[in-house]
């Protein structure tokens, strides 16, 4: 089948890619657009390492045909969070040691980001529920949950100071 052109918003910029039908968003982001923060742990919707935000909602890019995001807004870790790691969420992941190998970290961060945007003061259960689709084989999850809790507190403090 012939390739088609798909246009979507990637972070701040509009991108246009030429792809064969049914190419995944994951493949386009990793291999055409240099977004290697999008990982490929399983390519079958099982691990969450390829999580991106589509219009702010976390989705597994390995299960999304590129046509599905035409005209929509896609964020990867590289476009959603600052490269100097200044975001409270990134700082909390570092402070809590919420990773060892780091392969699941981009997906974890984006799921956490979406959760905190939707619910700035999530309960511990809500955090665990939000992270349920993302597999980590190193940490046992405890420091990841602690990092999201710490980030929620830090964002709250920042908002207080901002008033």
């Amino acid at each position: 089948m012939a390739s088609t052109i798909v246009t979507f918003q990637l972070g701040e910029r509009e991108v246009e890619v030429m792809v064969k039908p049914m190419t995944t968003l994951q493949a386009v982001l990793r291999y055409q657009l240099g977004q290697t923060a999008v990982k490929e742990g399983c390519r079958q919707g099982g691990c969450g390492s390829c999580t991106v935000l589509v219009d702010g909602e976390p989705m597994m890019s390995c299960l999304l045909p590129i046509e599905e995001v035409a005209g929509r807004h896609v964020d990867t870790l590289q476009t959603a969070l600052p490269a100097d790691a200044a975001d409270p969420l990134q700082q909390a992941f570092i402070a809590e040691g919420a990773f060892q190998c780091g392969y699941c970290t981009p997906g974890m961060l984006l799921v956490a980001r979406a959760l905190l945007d939707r619910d700035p003061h999530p309960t511990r259960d809500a955090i665990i529920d939000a992270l349920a689709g993302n597999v980590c084989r190193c940490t046992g999850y405890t420091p990841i949950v602690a990092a999201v809790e710490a980030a929620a507190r830090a964002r709250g403090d920042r908002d207080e100071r901002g008033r």
Partner: protein
Amino acid sequence: MSPARHVVGRSVARSDALGHVTGRTVFTTDRAFPGLLHLKVVRSPVHHARIRGVDLSEAERVPGFVRALTHADVPHNVYTILGLIGVEPEEEFVLAVDRVRYKGEPIVAIVAESEQAALDAVARVKLDLLELPAVFDVEEALKPGAPIVTHWGNNTFMYEGHPCRRVRFGDVEAAFAQADHIVEGRYDTKPIEHAPTETTAAIAVPEANGRFTVYTNTQALYFSLDNTSIILQVPGNQLHFVGGTVGGGFGGKVDVIVEPLATLAAMKTNRPVKYAFSRQEEMQVSSTRSAWRIYMKDGVMADGRLIARKVTSYADSGAYSRQTPYALTKHAANAAGPYAIPNVSIDAYCVFTNRQPTSAMRGFGITMASFALEVQMDKIAEVVGLDPWAVRFINAYHNGDMKPHRKLVEDATLIETMQAAARLVGHELPDAFRTMTSDPRPDRGA
């Protein structure tokens, strides 16, 4: 001295933390190379078979097919990873010759312009296999008449002329005759897949100076480099291995599986070649922790003293050795546990079956010994009517004790560790155990 050097007692952020939280950490398959080719492998669909024929004609017609690699293309096709530390014989095939011994064993490698083309070509390779009887149980594999898995011997690894790793210390049978109680147990464990989030992968790149740069997520960079050098019969200085970033390993990325084929393909095509496991390959083909079967028989006195232990252990190595022979040696050295037992006999068998090869995983060989022997300690406590803590303090090894494999204990910490554990869980120990130390026993003075 700068304050940064004072790190004891403080939390220090990982050096790779910034990369992890910004997505800039570069894992093996994050690297892009112009003209990258993709390698996929035709695998045995059955557990044990004679290969009567391989027909590549349809695969070669797939658009994007570049070339196939068979055993005839591999300069030194038979290897064993631990050959580097003197383990013999070389016995695993990079690509199968005339027989496959486990489901998933590589037979032919296909190199293609795209991953999809490689997969399409793999699907079109026709195999003519004569299926053979297979064996999947360690004790079945040792019975007369069992299918023989190896091409060089029987179904056990040989340790200095013996079919098992042996430890002999004191006289267990005499001690059993004197014991007040005999406590026996059988312990079975299952294979465990490491399931790293990042699958096993390598990319080999031909450089302008004739060398090959090999990017890999191996946990054992020099094992990979040296084995690749042996398999491809090229000097190590022609190979530049780049590693260090591993997306989860746990012992599962020490087996030198992807680098030799990726590098061979790069040599044959003069183009960069990527060989990355799919999730299915990672789960079904990569090594697992071995399944173990352990029989333990302990002779115990009424006061809780463990005077004799006899162990017969079988680790399922799968079809090839990989790191499992070494696991049995570690196991045999540790099956008495951190306890002073004057009479010990251990037979630890590394058994070949038609299952997926097994290898290293966190504490391999020892973890299963600890499981079995600590359950034994609890059983002993029950039989002699003592507190499980007491049985362990009474039998704990001390500095100056001789372990069954003739290693003098110089760094015993069991007693102090148990005391710390008791404090942490709020368990009150009797004075005798609370004040005990690992110092040499008075009756065995220097």
